[in-house]
């Protein structure tokens, strides 16, 4: 067993550890120094094989200008300008085809890059940050096993009580910083 080979084996064993640590570091870097916006959630509770229980739902916004996508299933890439508002739901102005570096308007508190869907009839307009889209404008929020059922019930009985804090970077990327129930932190 040569020293070089031992070093190679040690490096191979260290690789997963370093990668996991790097993943944590990357996520912490994403959250640090980002502006935060709190958004209500509506949804339901299935399970994920790897991560456990999650609430699958949609972020609930107020709209100044909805995405003008063709039909409620076809999404439109762009961004949402978050306007200053007193309402519990953040008020959005959808900007189609927005790219990082584009101007968004002076009245925007922050800008979130993502995808929007137009509302039709009883289907509300949707918007989801680009890196949080779990498909069709849905987000998955991983929740404690023993709270999953209560949270599911809460979403039905008291819409708006379950919210997420989105950490938004100046380039428009967003990640979930925290989950809240009636304003109180859940989990982390």
């Amino acid at each position, binding site marked *: *067993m040569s020293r070089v080979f*031992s070093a*190679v*084996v*040690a490096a*191979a*064993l*260290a*690789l*997963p*550890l370093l*990668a*996991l*640590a790097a*993943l*944590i570091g990357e*996520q912490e870097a*994403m*959250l640090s120094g980002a502006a935060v916006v709190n958004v209500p959630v509506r949804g339901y509770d299935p*399970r*994920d*094989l*790897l*991560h*456990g*229980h999650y609430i699958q739902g949609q972020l609930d916004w107020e709209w100044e200008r909805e995405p003008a996508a063709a039909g409620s299933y076809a999404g439109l890439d762009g961004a949402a300008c978050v306007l200053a508002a007193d309402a519990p739901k953040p008020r959005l102005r959808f900007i189609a085809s927005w790219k990082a570096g584009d101007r968004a308007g002076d009245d925007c508190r922050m800008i979130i890059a993502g995808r929007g869907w137009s509302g039709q009839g009883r289907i509300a307009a949707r918007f989801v940050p680009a*890196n*949080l*889209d*779990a498909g069709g404008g849905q*987000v*998955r*929020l*991983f*929740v*404690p*096993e*023993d*709270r999953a059922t209560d949270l599911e019930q809460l979403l039905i009985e008291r819409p708006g009580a379950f919210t*997420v804090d989105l950490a938004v970077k100046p380039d428009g990327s967003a*990640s*979930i910083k925290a*989950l809240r129930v009636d304003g109180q932190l*859940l*989990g*982390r």
Partner: protein
Amino acid sequence: MIAEHFARRWQKAGLIDDDLAHRIVDWEIANRRPVVLWAIAGMGALAMALGVMAIVGANWESIPAWLKLAVDLGLNGACAVAVFVFWRQQRLWLREIAALLLFGLVLSGIALIGQVYQLQSDPWRALVLWLALCTPFLALTAHTRLTGTIWAIAAVTTWVVAGDPIHDLLARIAVLPARRQYWESGLLFFLVMGYLAACAMIVLASLRWLWPETRSQADLLMRLAIAGLIATCSLAMTFAWREAGDGGPLGPIVAAAIATLLAAAALWSTHAEAERRILLILLAISFAVWTVALLISGFDGKQADLTRAVLFIAYWGVVGTMAARAGARALFGLAFSMIGLRLLVLYFEAIGGLTATGLGLIGGGVLCLALAAIGWRLMRRMPRRPAGAAA
């Protein structure tokens, strides 16, 4: 136990003397391969890894996220150190079990990070990352068939879970037509997945064969790959009906040709002449059968069914011949059974009506009995597999 039982039996029958019986039993004790214990130990490591994952899944709210992450990293670190120490000390059992445990812990670590930071990525991304991080240390430190089997299961699972992006990739490079709906994946796609995976596994097994310490693992991977290839080609001959949206057969044929060439090149460059000959013939025949099966997959009717059946029987005939040459009795028996089964099915495909069905059943039964008799005779005449022969 089993060796002692047979040694005593042969001793009583006068086939071996007392001294030889003792020597056989002593040798078996000294070179014992406790498969059951290995299986139990492997299941134990797997159960522990799954247990950690389930606890991660429970997502205890009362434990702060930083503590969960720190404990997970600590466990991963401790397990990595254990693998290294056992590897240095050449303690086979402990090294393999610790490596399997680390394999599971890394996946639970990825899941935990996804949970804590609410990451939304698809499961296949987590699985690909898991394999990318773990394959290097498993390749260097874990040499047993048990670890090879578990790695192969993980690789196949990842391949299957990544079906959607693979389909999109194959559509982008014109191997398959683009899906009209995101849930749409025809049977042809799964056959292409199977063929490509089998060839990729042949390449990996060939590379593993280069290292003398991992040859038994390589042998197992090669067997799994060949079994996958034969199964895929058999299914292609049986079920590869092309539908209107499936596009032409050229894309899957070209993709299979490239994969076959890569697999053949790997076999050619890593195996000696005697070891690679049968495998290369099998690979070439499989590709030929795949091509013909896809070319005729657009046709319907009795004639097309008959062509597919003849092709199926011819393919398994070749597999049986190769198995006979290699002295692989079990595979030979399987090939013979497959041919018999297909003939029986062909019998039923060709007939209709109650009287004809009755006659078909009688004819099919006679056919099966005749085939069993011929198979029995052929198997008795078959040479045994030479000691230490590869797949």
